[in-house]
């Protein structure tokens, strides 16, 4: 696998700065400890009670194979993080889990994803039903241009619920740690909320349809540190009831919140085409303390990306 890559990482190890001679001092940077969330009782992959079992997943956009041969398992009520440099296919894989990629013309998944024991791409499977079970939160908060109330009520409504749903709205907002902040302006337009509030609203919206899994694609990258902390706290809280898969570009975030981490990167094949690959998938603590792949180590130590 390493052959197809530029030898850079290797040469870097030999000579960390591959620079024209000019006096550069090697200065040790002491990075304070980072909290890593470990599973309460570490479970082996086999004992995971898997929600998703991915095997040999490749994703194509038209003829372009954006992601190649991914195998991974998402455990029930765990937080799984997907990290890696830009363009390595994190979002692409994530969007396979609720078949959002179906909506992109020309996008196509090969391989298998089992959801519990059902083939997610089976013939009888209705993607709309899939998305109802497997909620999603996006990078940029995307509240509907409606009231806060209607944003939350939207999911239940399109799923056939009629009438008032004050209880559902309150419950979802409470779970999303937003109720106290908005309970007095529930009829106000959701676009008037701050970015962090909007993102929690989107999480509340996802919760309101009572999903099984929540997928999050860089949910904090458009937020400030305070809002980020709130969302991270919320994720921890939610992981008691929900299975969560999160894509993040912030390694520290992955380290802080996740039980298990998947590290992706892009490899260039013989024809010079880049494909996203899963490099390493393990317990978060292992990935950050003792990665088994050189590239993982390079990435989490900031050598690239």
């Amino acid at each position, binding site marked *: 696998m390493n052959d197809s890559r530029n030898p850079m990482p290797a040469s870097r190890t030999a000579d960390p700065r591959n620079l024209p001679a000019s006096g550069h001092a090697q200065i040790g940077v002491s990075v304070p400890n980072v909290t890593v969330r470990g599973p309460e009782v570490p479970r082996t992959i086999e004992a995971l009670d898997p929600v998703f079992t991915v095997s040999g997943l490749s994703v194509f956009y038209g003829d372009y194979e954006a992601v190649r041969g991914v195998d991974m398992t998402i455990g029930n009520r765990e937080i799984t993080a997907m990290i890696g440099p830009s363009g390595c296919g994190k979002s692409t894989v994530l969007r396979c889990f*609720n078949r*959002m990629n179906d*909506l992109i*013309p*020309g996008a196509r998944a090969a391989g298998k994803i089992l959801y519990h024991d059902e083939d997610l791409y089976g013939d009888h499977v209705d993607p*709309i*039903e899939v*998305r*109802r*079970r497997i*909620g*999603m939160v*996006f990078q*940029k908060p*995307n*509240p*509907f*241009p409606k009231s806060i109330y209607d944003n939350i009520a*939207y*999911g239940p409504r*399109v*799923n056939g619920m009629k009438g008032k749903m004050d209880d559902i709205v309150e419950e979802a907002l409470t779970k999303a740690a937003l109720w106290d902040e908005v309970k007095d302006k529930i009829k106000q337009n959701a*676009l008037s909320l701050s970015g962090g509030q909007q993102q929690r609203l*989107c999480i509340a*919206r*996802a919760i309101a*349809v009572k999903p099984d899994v929540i997928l999050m694609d860089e949910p904090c990258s458009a937020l400030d540190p305070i809002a980020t902390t709130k969302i991270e706290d919320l994720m921890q809280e939610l992981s008691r009831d929900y299975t969560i898969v999160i894509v993040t570009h912030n390694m520290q975030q992955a380290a802080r919140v996740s039980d298990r981490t998947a590290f992706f990167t892009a490899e260039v094949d013989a024809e010079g085409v880049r494909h996203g690959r899963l490099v390493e998938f393990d317990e978060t603590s292992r990935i950050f303390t003792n990665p088994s792949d050189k590239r993982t180590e390079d990435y989490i130590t900031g050598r690239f990306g």
Partner: protein
Amino acid sequence: MAILSTPKSAVQLASRGRPLKEHLFRVALLASLAIALIFLAMLIVYVVEEGWPRLDSTLWENQPSIRRPETAGIQSGIFGTLWIIGLTALMALPTGILAAIYLEEYADKTKWYNRLIELNISNLAAVPSIVYGILGLGIIARWMQFGFTVMTGAMTISLLVLPIVIISAREAIRAVPPSIREGSLALGATQWQTIYRQVLPASIPGIATGSILALSRAIGEAAPFLMLGAATLVRFNPEGVWSNFSVLPLQIYSFITRPQEEFAVLAAAAIVILLAILLLMNSVAIWLRNRYQKRW
């Protein structure tokens, strides 16, 4: 090359005499814009001045008359135009908006038939209106035997403005950010639920603006009616879709072709009315656009 090797310190950042050329260019651009606008202003001043003597209530209270050009009015034309516009709105707008939804939300652009539809629409937008007249005459009036009625006129004009409605509605729909669609679909909404509850409400102001502008094009059309041979001397207002009719632009055309000076004045006065209707519609469109323009 000398200018490129200035010393790095003790610099001088003053300008090097570019402003004049820059200025002239800017003035030329502004002048171009001004020419178009001055022209529009001249046109308006001219028709108002010409039509001034006849800009009174007799203009819309009276019917056209050969015998008394000095008191002839354009009531039948105003009503005919309103009928045509109303029917066109009823036929072209729903069709156009539905087609736009199909093309933006459903059509798989990789399929040949969808590309064909798109190419076809952009082509139709460029087809001369007189050719639509041929279509109306050959297919609607003669083959479908609808005759020379309000219905024939409205159907012809509907087909004529359809591409414009589709194009502008597509733009409005496209302006709704994909994140709204994704948000809805990710909640398990079906595609139509997403469109009906999110995309359409968000794009209605844009669609309305485009539709009004398309209809204002329809109001000014004369060539297709010329082909349809609509009567010019119509002294009654249409009573239904199978009624005979005339429209303002056609009446204006027929006034221009009359020998008496009074008809030239009448034509100018009728033009003022036509332009007033158009200005009104444009204003509504602009107001809508400014009022509801969404920024996500």
